[in-house]
């Protein structure tokens, strides 16, 4: 990963955490000041989806041209994405506790996200259970495509078909409900970009570490 991208991530997130707390936000009942959680909770999920997107991209590339490194890249992205997903789940549960009344509301989007995370945890179980390298890489690349294909409807489509408390679901308007003026976008999108860059950075560190181990064990 290029150094300027790392610095961009730092700048973006310093801006997000300052402006996210200091800038004006819409005054809404029930949400009150917690509307600011949008800047910190939702980017975790956006980051997760983007990182899983990177993972499935490398899985496709592996299936076209089976290189060991591509498989490792795919794994590193999925790993970072899962970390983001777990953080999104924890922050969401905390937010739900104070706005919806309980940490686990049984909201379709919440359930869907939990199932998606379990599908991705099974990806790591699969990887851990195959000894042969080529076989592990091929199996997990195919499974990765399935996992991504399962995650998209679980998070984006099913909650829209049923009633969900999440904005953008069950006839609720999307982000429009928050940014009566578009001030919130000014912080939200930089937050998504910044956290995604941090995710890519962590994934690249993991990949480089694994490549080092690989080289050392070859000697």
């Amino acid at each position, binding site marked *: 990963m290029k150094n300027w991208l*790392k610095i961009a991530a*730092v700048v973006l*997130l*310093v801006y997000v*955490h*300052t402006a996210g*707390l*200091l800038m004006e936000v819409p*005054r*809404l*009942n029930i949400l*009150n*000041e917690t509307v600011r959680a949008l800047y910190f909770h939702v980017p975790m999920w956006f980051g997760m989806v983007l990182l899983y997107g990177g993972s499935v991209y490398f899985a496709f590339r592996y299936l076209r041209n089976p290189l060991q490194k591509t498989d490792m890249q795919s794994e590193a992205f999925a790993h970072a994405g899962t970390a983001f997903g777990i953080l999104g789940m924890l922050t969401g549960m905390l937010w739900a506790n104070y706005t919806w009344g309980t940490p686990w509301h049984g909201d379709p989007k919440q359930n869907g996200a939990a199932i998606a995370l379990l599908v991705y945890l099974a990806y790591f179980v699969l990887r851990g259970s195959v000894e042969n390298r080529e076989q592990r890489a091929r199996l997990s690349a195919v499974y990765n495509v399935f996992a991504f294909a399962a995650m998209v409807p679980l998070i984006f489509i099913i909650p829209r078909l049923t009633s969900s408390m999440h904005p953008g679901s069950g006839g609720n308007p999307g982000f429009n409900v928050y940014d009566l003026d578009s001030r919130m976008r000014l912080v939200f999108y930089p937050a998504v970009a910044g956290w995604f860059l*941090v995710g890519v*950075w*962590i994934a690249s*560190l993991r990949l*480089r*570490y694994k490549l*080092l181990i690989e*080289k*050392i064990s070859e000697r």
Partner: protein
Amino acid sequence: MKHVVQAMMTLAVLLAVVPQVLAQEVEMADAMRAEGKIYVIVAIILIVLAGLFVYLFLLDRKITKAEKLLNK
């Protein structure tokens, strides 16, 4: 004429004030902002963030060093 001007002025004041009053009804952490304590929280969060980034940069540098060492 005087009454009309007065009525219009009253209306103008109402139009200017009412939306603000309505907006104030939703409870926000306005007191904390007024006291300036919010900056304490911003500073604390930025320190945590800075720590995380310093850690990442140092880890990055360590891995770069190890890569160079291995390639020798």
